[in-house]
Each structure stands twice: as structure tokens, then as C-alpha cells.
């Protein structure tokens, strides 16, 4: 396999705090941080009514498709996307080639404000992801420590009906 992506408690807390601040500063409805493969990393704001799992998969699909288009047009990437809805608008951007930052907002905010706040948050998130990757490369992300203890029986038990 091509290695795993590991999120540690410390960095998870930092990402969460950046998301919380971005949601507040951008006056956003909600902020999501999603792994490029469609897994949720963090959420903030009014997310109780959102199906974050489905949204994560679709945002990742959207970003992947846009990346595919960029490649065909000989562009490195399209760094950001904006979807304008009747009530809810969506700002999507890539962070450190690793994660997707999604901001949902309504008329209480504006695209300009969101863009401004996203820029700052992206820098912070970029640094946090770099730290995660450094930690992973140093072996902190090695799974055998945790998963070496898993027995074949543990795996079989998952599938017992």
C-alpha cells in the first residue's frame, strides 16, 4: 500500500481550534476539513443537520474532478471554488495538497470576508499538516505499534453475524 495517513490528538486539537476560529471570524454557517480521499478530519459551526460523511465524499469527488480538469488544461490546479446558492454558499479550497477546506456561509457573511479568513486559516492548517507529515515520517505514524496487537480473531469477530 502507499502508506496510511495518521492524525494525532495534538494536531487534531490544533485543526479543530483553527476551524472554530475560522467559523467565527468568517461569520460562517459551518467549516469542514476533509482529507482529499473524502474522509472527514474536522467540523465546526452549525453541522448538526449536515450529513458530513456524504458531503465529505462529494466534496472530495468534486475537488478530484476539478483537479482532473486542471490537468487536462495544463493548469497546476484550481486552488479555489465557489458555489452560489439561494441561501447557502460554498467556498472550497485546497490546503497543503493534502486536505480540503470547505466554508458554508449565507447572507450574514460575504465571499470577500470568507476568502480573507480562509487565506489565514489555510496557512495555519498548512503548517499543522506539515507537522503531521513530519511526525508520520519520523515513525509516529507507524501502525504496527497499535495494529500489531490485532489478532486474526479480532478481525474475524468483526464479521460474525
Amino acid at each position, binding site marked *: 500500500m502507499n502508506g496510511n495517513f495518521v492524525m494525532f490528538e495534538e494536531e487534531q486539537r490544533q485543526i479543530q481550534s483553527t476551524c472554530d476560529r475560522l467559523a467565527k471570524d468568517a461569520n460562517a454557517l459551518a467549516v469542514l476539513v476533509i482529507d482529499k*480521499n473524502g474522509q472527514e*478530519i474536522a467540523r465546526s459551526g452549525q453541522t448538526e443537520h449536515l450529513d458530513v460523511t456524504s458531503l465529505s465524499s462529494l466534496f472530495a469527488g468534486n475537488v478530484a474532478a476539478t483537479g482532473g480538469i486542471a490537468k487536462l488544461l495544463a493548469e497546476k490546479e484550481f486552488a479555489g471554488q465557489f458555489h452560489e446558492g439561494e441561501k447557502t454558499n460554498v467556498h472550497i479550497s485546497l490546503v497543503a495538497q493534502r486536505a480540503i477546506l470547505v466554508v458554508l456561509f449565507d447572507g450574514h457573511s460575504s465571499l470577500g470576508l470568507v476568502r480573507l479568513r480562509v487565506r489565514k486559516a489555510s496557512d495555519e492548517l498548512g503548517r499543522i499538516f506539515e507537522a503531521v507529515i513530519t511526525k508520520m515520517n519520523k515513525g509516529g505514524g507507524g501502525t504496527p505499534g497499535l495494529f500489531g496487537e*490485532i489478532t486474526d480473531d479480532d478481525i474475524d469477530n468483526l*464479521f460474525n453475524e
Partner: protein
Amino acid sequence: MSFINYSSREINCKIVYYGPGLCGKTTNLQYIYNKTNPEAKGKMISLATETERTLFFDFLPLSLGEIRGFKTRFHLYTVPGQVFYDASRKLILKGVDGVCFVADSQIARTEANIESLENLRTNLEEQGYNLDKLPYVVQYNKRDLPDVAPVAELRELLNPTKVPDYEAVATTGVGVFDTLKAVAKLVLTELKRGG
């Protein structure tokens, strides 16, 4: 690429159902969706054309329970099988942890199966994966139809490396969960090995 979150104590894995057009990839996911307890599944998303052909992907999130205090979550995806959607298939393979190749057992689809399997191998290589090193299972679907090739023949053509393979009738569910369990188990075993 599995996503292991120590903070939320979750293991997230991605399984992709691959195969030629109309082989029953979406039907596999629909059957799993219909037969899974509501608390263990999320919504099934299908990005399909008006004629219900997969346009981009189907997506079904499943929770399989805990393993050593970690919740195991599997995200199942299908690719669009039609030949001209190759760019989309490549995107969906990104970050894959396990692959299930769904073959259409009908004799008339032999060429389509071979072509799709070659396409899978090529597209994986483009992403830096080797099918022979990836958790991988094969399903011979549509065993209930009249003009199907013998399993031995399909096995020789489509499963030369002898990975786990299953006969299936996805419309009635025969072999569907066997296939899913086999690939999920291989993915977890690979994680255990530190893959």
C-alpha cells in the same frame, strides 16, 4: 491509503468496486445498503445519469464495529464501468485500500471483463499501486443467467494470481457479503502488517 485518527479513534478505509459496464457494481452496493442495519450505514449516494448508469461514482459508508477500541469505517465506492468514463475511474482509485473486481459471467461479456481488468491494472499503476500487492478479491456475478462461462474458465482468465474469488448473484444478494467481508478482511490484515 487508510486514514487512522488517534483523536477520534477511528480507522477509515476505502474499497472500490471495479468492473465492466453493467456488471453489477452498483447492485452490490444497493444490496449491502438494503441489508445493513440503519445504525451501521450512512446514506448511499449515486451520481448517475437519467438512465441510472453510474456517471461518476456510488458511495456507501459502512461501520463494521470496533477493533481494539478503534471504530472501523469502510467507504465503499463504485466506478463508472463504461469505457469512455476512464478519467473518472482514475480519480476514484486515488487513496484506495482494497479493490473488488466484479466480473460479468456472461460469455458475451468475456472481452469486456478482460478489458476492464487490464484497465484496472493500468489505472492503478498510474497512481503508483500494484494490483498484485493490494488487498484484492474477484466476484463472478450474474451466475443465475443462462449463457454464463464456467467458473473455472473465468478464474483462469480473470484471476491468474488466485486471490479470493466468489460466485454471486448481486440482484438477490448471493455472494455479495462474502465478497465484501473478504476484501474488508484483507484490508485490515494489510493494516495489521503495517501496510
